[in-house]
């Protein structure tokens, strides 16, 4: 009788083990849903933010320079557009930072 009981307990333990392994396998085979951008390292984030800011100003400079050449308003439009470019750069930085905090920018809305 004790022998039988022991084997039954062993059986139960084995089944439980199988159960755990099965659900683990099921879990592992599911497609993972995780964040997108926030996996990038600090260095990646830093270069992104710096580039956003510089690019805004750069666009201001280029656009201002060409418009000044074209309209003969040197150097006023360039000055104006550098300021606007800096504002755009800051806007970009803020957006990028928001995206980094949120993780992926795409949210499954209404699904």
């Amino acid at each position, binding site marked *: 009788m004790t022998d039988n009981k022991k084997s039954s307990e062993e*059986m139960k333990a084995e089944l439980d083990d*199988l*159960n755990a392994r*099965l659900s683990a396998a099921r879990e592992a*085979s599911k497609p993972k849903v995780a964040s997108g951008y926030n996996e990038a390292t600090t260095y990646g984030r830093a270069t992104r933010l710096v580039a956003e800011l510089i690019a805004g100003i750069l666009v201001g400079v280029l656009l201002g320079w060409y418009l000044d050449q074209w309209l003969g308003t040197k150097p006023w439009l360039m000055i104006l557009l550098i300021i606007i470019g800096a504002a755009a750069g800051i806007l970009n930085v803020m957006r990028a930072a928001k995206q980094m905090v949120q993780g992926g920018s795409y949210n499954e809305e209404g699904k």
Partner: protein
Amino acid sequence: MPQLDPAVFLPQIFWLIVVFAALYIFIARNAAPKIADVLKKRQDRIADDLTAAEQLQAKAEEARIAFEKAQADARNNAASIVLSKRDEIKADTEAALQKLSEELNAKIDEAQKRIDEAKSKALSDVRDVATDVCSEIVSQISGLNLDKKSIEKVVKAKTDAAMKGDA
């Protein structure tokens, strides 16, 4: 900075477009569908295997439960058999004891009866002897020939008194 020389822009961009287009066509037509196919097949296979494994696992669980139920039944059965047997044996034993004590009582009664008979017989023998001895003694000492009946009466009374005193 050699990168800012406009003369090198055109050849680079031209070859970039050529190579990138070739790579894109290769990946879109050949590599990506192939990889997607393998991944899909593997996912399906894993899902199938998992389903099969889960079914088998459910069966194993069922079997285990059935086994445990059978075991529990057997245990209960055994216990009830033991209980009923014990009662039976107890009843048998009690009946046998009862019978034995009845027999013994009967034997004791019989023995008592025989003892009583033997006693009364012995007593009457004693009385006869006492009566004879008494009449003999009386006739020899006093010469009186007493009536046997009256002697018997006296002896009886005396012995009864003695028996009572004894008792």
